[in-house]
Every structure is written in structure tokens, then in C-alpha cells.
């Protein structure tokens, strides 16, 4: 657990980076600090491992005031992932990952063995270990950065805009990877980003900070979207927040109807209704329109997934019928947008 108690940081030039921050990061959760530049999110993060010391107030890690701990010793027990990965260009990937174990006195052999395990954990092939960072893609470098931060198995992980320098597709993959790792490792993670979508995607709780280092709202992502504390948060959370908040509501109440199907390659016949084309394994392949032309289908959602997925499936389907699939991708049924909206309405009442 990490605790900020009335923490203020003023720099020598008179700017206040963080102003009276009171906040508790629960053990085993991902807490995201998000806000525009100059809101003090990185400064707050750096006060946890004493890269910055507060002007006043107290930062506690597991109940212990960090100011009472020798900084290098403190830092070896806290993983840190930095923007652009910050890998050491002159060390191989394996030795980069082995850094903290070596600092804490492990033998080289044991540290490298541990590093190899971590490369596997973050989904990198073992042969990358012999390469230098310059030979890796941006996404691979970030994975190495995460592996290096985890090497000594610290209970706390600080991540400072770790995925902001990679392209959106790679970023999404890295976010999924982080969530997968977290489910396995159960670390206490503080994650800094300026990207509200990233914050909402990965945070158990999100701290929205405003310029001048003031905490505007500290809440789970769903609450941030549905009940922003003020205009600043509402504006920062952005457009479509009503629609996006459906991501946090499951679609259990939405009854799927049997889909009118036609087997792929079979005689289509004629019909006045839209019919779903399915392959031999019952997977959706597209729709047959009433005029017998075949058109591609819309997005699919898995039964029980969020209402956002169900609504999008219905809205994006050429027939107006959203296709629900089971875990194996087989057609489970169809839903209309009306059904989804009814569920939303009934939950409100």
C-alpha cells in the first residue's frame, strides 16, 4: 500500500508541482495518475521512490515513511519503468534485465537465469537476450523495460508513461500484456499517463489531476465516466463518455434471440429477411441481404461481455442485429440495439 498524506512539492523556481495530495493506493491494484502536462503526476510518482522529495507531507510505502530509507536501498525494492524504456544501450537485453539482482548482490549466473525467466514472462523469445537494445523494436524495448523492473520481484511498480512512445496498436498490446501480468503477479502499481483512454482501460482506480498539482477526482474508471466530480473532469474524460461508460456494465440482462442462419456455400433461396451466413463450425461469415447479396458483418461480442460491445455489435451490423458469439466464436444469437437500450433503461429504474 502507498499512502500520500497532505503531500506538497514546490520547486526552487516557485512553481507548485503537487499541492496537498491525499491519496491511498491499495495493495495489489493499478492506480493511474492522469492529467494534462504540469499537473504533477510524474512528480507525485517520483516521490514514492525519492527521485523527488516532498516539500511537506509524508509518503508511506507499506506504512513506512520513505524519507527514513536510504534512497538507493529504497529504489532497489521498487520497480520502475520509464518512458522510452531507458534501457542501457551498452548492455545486452539479458544484462539489462539482470540489473537490479546484480546490484543487490546476486551472482551473475543466477541473475542471468532470473533475467531469462523474465524475458519469457513478458513474452519475448530467449534469443533476444543476447541482443543490444538498439536491435529491438520500440514495443520490445518496453517489454524489456517491464521485465527489468520486475527482476527483483518488487511488491511496488512505478510506471512513468511507459507506453506513450509506441504506436497505438502496439500500445494496446502492451496494455493487455500488463493486465495479464498483473492478474498473475498482483503488484501494487502506480501508472502515470496523459492519455485518459489508457487510464480508463488499465486502472482499478484513476486519479485525475489538474494543473497546479491538485487532485480533481480519485475514483474507479466507471465512476469517473458516469459521475465526474466537476466540469474539469468531465471535459478531461472527453466525448462519448456516456457510451464509453457502458464498457463497465456487463450484458448479462440482454437476452439473445435465435439467429436466422444460412450455411456458407449452401443454396440461399430467397427471403424477405436478413440471414446470417455461418461456416461449418457455426462461426459468423457475414449477412445475406433480402436482395440475396452477401455483405460483411459488423463487430461481434462475446456473451456476457460489456453492454458497449453488445450495443456496438447491433449498431455496426448491416441487418441491425448484433451477433453474439460464445468463447469459441460460435454464433450464440442476435440482439437489437433496442434490447440493449431497454436493459440500460431498466437498470436506471
Amino acid at each position, binding site marked *: 500500500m502507498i499512502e500520500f498524506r497532505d503531500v506538497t512539492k514546490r520547486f526552487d523556481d516557485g512553481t507548485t508541482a503537487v499541492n496537498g495530495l491525499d491519496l491511498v493506493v491499495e495493495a495489489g491494484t493499478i492506480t493511474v495518475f492522469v492529467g494534462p502536462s504540469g499537473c504533477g503526476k510524474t512528480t507525485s510518482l517520483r516521490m514514492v521512490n525519492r527521485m523527488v522529495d516532498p516539500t511537506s507531507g509524508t509518503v508511506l510505502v507499506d506504512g513506512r515513511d520513505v524519507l527514513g530509507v536510504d534512497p538507493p536501498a529504497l529504489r532497489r525494492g521498487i520497480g*520502475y519503468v520509464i518512458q522510452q524504456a531507458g534501457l*542501457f544501450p551498452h548492455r545486452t537485453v539479458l544484462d539489462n534485465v539482470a540489473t537490479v539482482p546484480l546490484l543487490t548482490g546476486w551472482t551473475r549466473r543466477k541473475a542471468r537465469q532470473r533475467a531469462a525467466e523474465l524475458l519469457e514472462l513478458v513474452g519475448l523469445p530467449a534469443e533476444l537476450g543476447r*541482443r543490444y537494445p538498439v*536491435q529491438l523494436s520500440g514495443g520490445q524495448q518496453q517489454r524489456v523495460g517491464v521485465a527489468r523492473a520486475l527482476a527483483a520481484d518488487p511488491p511496488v511498480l512505478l510506471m512513468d508513461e511507459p507506453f506513450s512512445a509506441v504506436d497505438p496498436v502496439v500500445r494496446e498490446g502492451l496494455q493487455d500484456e500488463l493486465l495479464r501480468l498483473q492478474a498473475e503477479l498482483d503488484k501494487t502499481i502506480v501508472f502515470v499517463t496523459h492519455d485518459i483512454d489508457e487510464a480508463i482501460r488499465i486502472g482499478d482506480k484513476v486519479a485525475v489531476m489538474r494543473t497546479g498539482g491538485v487532485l480533481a477526482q480519485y475514483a474507479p474508471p466507471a465512476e469517473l465516466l458516469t459521475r465526474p466530480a466537476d466540469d474539469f473532469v468531465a471535459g478531461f474524460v472527453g466525448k462519448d463518455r456516456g457510451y464509453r461508460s457502458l464498457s463497465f456494465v456487463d450484458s448479462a440482462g440482454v437476452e439473445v434471440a435465435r439467429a436466422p442462419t444460412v450455411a456458407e456455400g449452401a443454396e440461399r433461396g430467397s427471403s424477405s429477411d436478413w440471414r446470417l451466413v455461418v461456416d461449418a463450425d457455426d462461426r459468423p461469415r457475414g449477412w445475406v441481404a433480402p436482395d440475396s447479396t452477401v455483405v460483411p458483418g459488423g463487430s461481434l461480442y462475446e456473451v456476457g461481455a460489456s453492454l458497449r460491445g453488445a450495443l456496438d455489435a447491433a449498431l455496426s451490423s448491416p441487418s441491425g442485429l448484433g451477433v453474439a458469439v460464445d468463447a469459441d466464436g460460435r454464433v450464440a444469437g442476435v440482439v437489437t440495439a433496442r434490447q440493449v437500450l431497454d436493459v440500460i433503461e431498466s437498470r436506471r429504474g
Partner: protein
Amino acid sequence: MGDIGKYLGDAGTRAALLDMLLDHVYLSLVPLAVSVVLAIVLGLLCHRFRRVNATLIGLSNVVYTVPSLALFAIIPAVIGTQVLDPLNVIIALTVYTTALLVRPVAEALAAVPAHVTAAATAMGFRPLRRFLTVELPLSVPVLAAGVRVGSVSNISLVSVGALIGTGGLGTLFTDGFRQRYLAPIIVGIVLTLVLALVVDLLLVLLRDRLTPWTRAGERL
């Protein structure tokens, strides 16, 4: 050419040449080694303290403008050595080479990416260890370039020391000119050149040994 053959045919001459060559190596490379260490320490001070930086860089520029022969002559007066003491040459060349190397070392340290040093600090490196194992190794390519210039410059400057009688291959030039005998002069030029090339080659090998990562991109 016959002259040179006759000159080198004498065993005593060859032994004397070897002595001069070894003297030359000693007089040029000891200052090089000492100044690398000094430049690293001073470069670190420049890097950490802005005011030291301005002062030292300015001072090193001034030092480099002092003529070498004048420096060889001044040093005994300053530190009280004998005029013919080889230490004068060693100290003078150390001063020169250090002045030459301070700026590139400071610049190389400044060029280490901020996110790399920040990551090292966040990982729990203490300042000295961070300097020795992260910042300094990353400065080697720039430092090596400076050291190569320094080695060539030292090897040529040691010859000047012969004018005040401190030994080395320069003695071949002073002797040759005094006796109006061309052979030792040519032998001296060739040996100086070969020495400079061999030392440079060794430095390149050493640099490559220390920086395998700089060529990693090429092997992709």
C-alpha cells in the same frame, strides 16, 4: 639508401635505436594514460558543476596555446626538477593531453540520454557506481576519439623534447642535423610514424573491445 643500410648494419646503433624507441613509448604513453584518468575526473566535475565547466574549458583552451618547447622549459622552474629530467616532458604532455580530453569527456557525459541516467538512478545505482558502470562506458566512443588524437600528438611532441635533451626518437633528428647525416633522420621519421600507427591501431582495437554495442546495429 646505402647510407641507411650501413647505418642500420651496426649492432650498437640498433641497440641504441631500440632504447630510444622504448624511451619514446614511455615518454608519450605514460602522459596519455595519466591524462585519461585526470580528464575523466575533471570531465566529471565539469559535467556536475556548471561553474567548474566554464572555468576548466577556458583554462584548457589557454593551456593548449602555450608552445610545447616553452612548457618544457618552464616546468623545471615551476616544480624544481632538473632541466634535463624526463619528468618535465611527462608533466608537460600530461597537461596538454588533459587539456585536450577534458572537453570531449564533459560533452560525452552530457550526451548520455537523460532517461538512461534516470532509469539507473531509479534502479538503485549509487552515484559512483552509476558513473563507472553506465555513464563512463557510454562515453567511451567519444573519449576514444580524443585519446587517439592525444596519442598521435604526444608521439610527435616527445620528439621536440630532444631539443632539451630528454631522449626518445627525437634524438635522431638532433644528432642527424648536427652531423649533417640523413640516415638517422629518415630512420627517426619512419620509426615515429610506425609507432604512431601501431599505437593508434591498438587504441582502435581497445575501443572496439570496450564498445561492442556501438556496432550491434550493423549486425541486424
